[in-house]
């Protein structure tokens, strides 16, 4: 527990240092209006890896708005997080990248109330900058001469990939089935694959090294993201504050900027 706090403090220090460029003015303004009775302490958020950038940003904003509040994140694959939660890991909020893993948590009686879908994601084709292999659409995933990555069928982005391939009638010939979407994206960034099927948000997060190609069949596998506070939350006030921020107009705007779409 103690080392957890130290880690959280360290993480907060790093985030503050990293984010000091743009946030100073806003932080000063919002600290002034922060209510004295607001949430304090540490909020622990277990969130799907695809939420890393936008949740880190929102957590920073929440800390700026509430003196004495620290937001600590555990970003990982949704199924790993669900396993950790059912094994008793202490957390206040769980944001899953799919309904199945949320169901694991609600079925175990760990959620406080009904989870709500707060955002959604669709697949995109990620290609290295400049698209050297000239990939144009989903049909290119059937080409033998390209080096292609998809997610493994065991993980959510792989299941979604199977859905769009089935809908499009494409027999995919991937060279590798990646263990998660970031691993697939890394291979695009390194230029080691010609294309990978990842989420639209991953393409945004990757910046200039990666280009995204939207394709119509993606509508057949829209991934909803549910979110809940946990019944055994050590910091229920902080948990509510974080969930409220995510669902507010400000939170939704941040999500859209990161490539997510409204649910």
């Amino acid at each position, binding site marked *: 527990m103690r080392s957890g706090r130290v880690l959280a403090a360290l993480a907060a220090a790093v985030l503050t240092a990293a984010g000091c460029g743009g946030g100073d003015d806003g932080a000063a303004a919002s600290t002034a209006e922060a209510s004295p009775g607001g949430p304090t302490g540490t909020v622990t958020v277990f969130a799907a890896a695809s939420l890393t950038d936008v949740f880190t940003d929102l957590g920073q904003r929440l800390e700026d708005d509430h003196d004495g509040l620290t937001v600590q994140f555990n970003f990982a*694959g949704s*199924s*790993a997080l669900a*396993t950790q939660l059912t094994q008793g890991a202490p957390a206040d909020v769980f944001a899953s990248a799919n309904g199945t893993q949320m169901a694991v948590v609600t079925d175990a009686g760990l959620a406080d109330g009904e989870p709500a879908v707060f955002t959604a994601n669709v697949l995109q084709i990620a290609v290295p900058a400049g698209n050297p292999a000239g990939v144009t659409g989903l049909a290119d995933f059937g080409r033998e001469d390209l*080096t292609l*990555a998809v997610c*493994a069928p*065991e*993980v959510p982005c792989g299941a979604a990939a199977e859905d769009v391939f089935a809908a499009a009638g494409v027999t995919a010939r*991937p*060279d*590798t*089935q*990646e*263990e998660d979407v970031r*691993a697939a994206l*890394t*291979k695009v960034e*390194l*230029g*080691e694959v010609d294309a990978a099927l990842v989420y639209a948000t991953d393409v945004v997060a990757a910046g200039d090294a990666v280009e995204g190609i939207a394709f119509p069949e993606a509508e057949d596998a829209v991934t909803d993201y549910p979110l809940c506070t946990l019944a055994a939350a050590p910091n229920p006030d902080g948990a509510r504050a974080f969930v409220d921020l995510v669902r507010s107009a400000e939170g939704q705007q941040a999500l859209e900027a990161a490539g997510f779409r409204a649910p």
Partner: protein
Amino acid sequence: MRRERTPAPLLVPATLAVAFLVLPLAGLLVRTPWTQLGTLLTAPGVGQALRLSLLSATLATAVSVVLGVPLAWVLARSRARGRAVLRALVTVPLVLPPVVGGVALFLVLGRQGIVGSWLAGTTGVTIPFTTAAVVIAETFVAMPFLVISVEGALRAADARYEDAAATLGADRWTTFRRVTLPLVAPGVAAGAVLCWARALGEFGATITFAGNFPGTTQTMPLAVYLALQRDPQAAIVLSLVLLLVSVATLLLLRDRWLGRGGAAG
């Protein structure tokens, strides 16, 4: 070797160590779904992943022995300057997170890599996402275990035998082959076992550099990790299979190489 009663100050921590190392294994055994064992074991892909694991770990060990034993000799015996720096450098894979090792391999051997792009340009051969990439990733991570082990054996070996061989007119290569190598054979065997075990369990560098595809690059640890995403029970069974096969192999080799109940392992 002399055998004696274990003194109490050693016995207590030794017992704790055994408990610490063996209890997680017992945990696996307790949670194994014995009734579904048959179905889970015969699931498609299990035998394939196991075969690939054993093959690639064995090849990685062979490469490690061929390259690592000479390196260990250089570290232990040569008069070359900068040996301390060299030793630190070659043990880097021990401390490097394996996933980082995988990315590093891309930067050298990937199709955009320093050597890899030249290879792809001249021969059309690309290494990533092939079984060869699995062997390379495993060798990268596991070879330092062999090098450290053999270097230790070389340092502990009595150099007077080598001096005697030289006095009797053997050149340095003959001395190495006929005197040094037999002298440190138990150390080489122990290092090879360590190296093989590490290669067999290798995950991070393999999944990064070789990717994951059933039949070509999906080894048992990768299969276990992915099974864990969907079906934890299947993952436990797969882990158990990997464990049993590796322990059985090690016991078998121990008998072969070192004689029954051999002391030098």
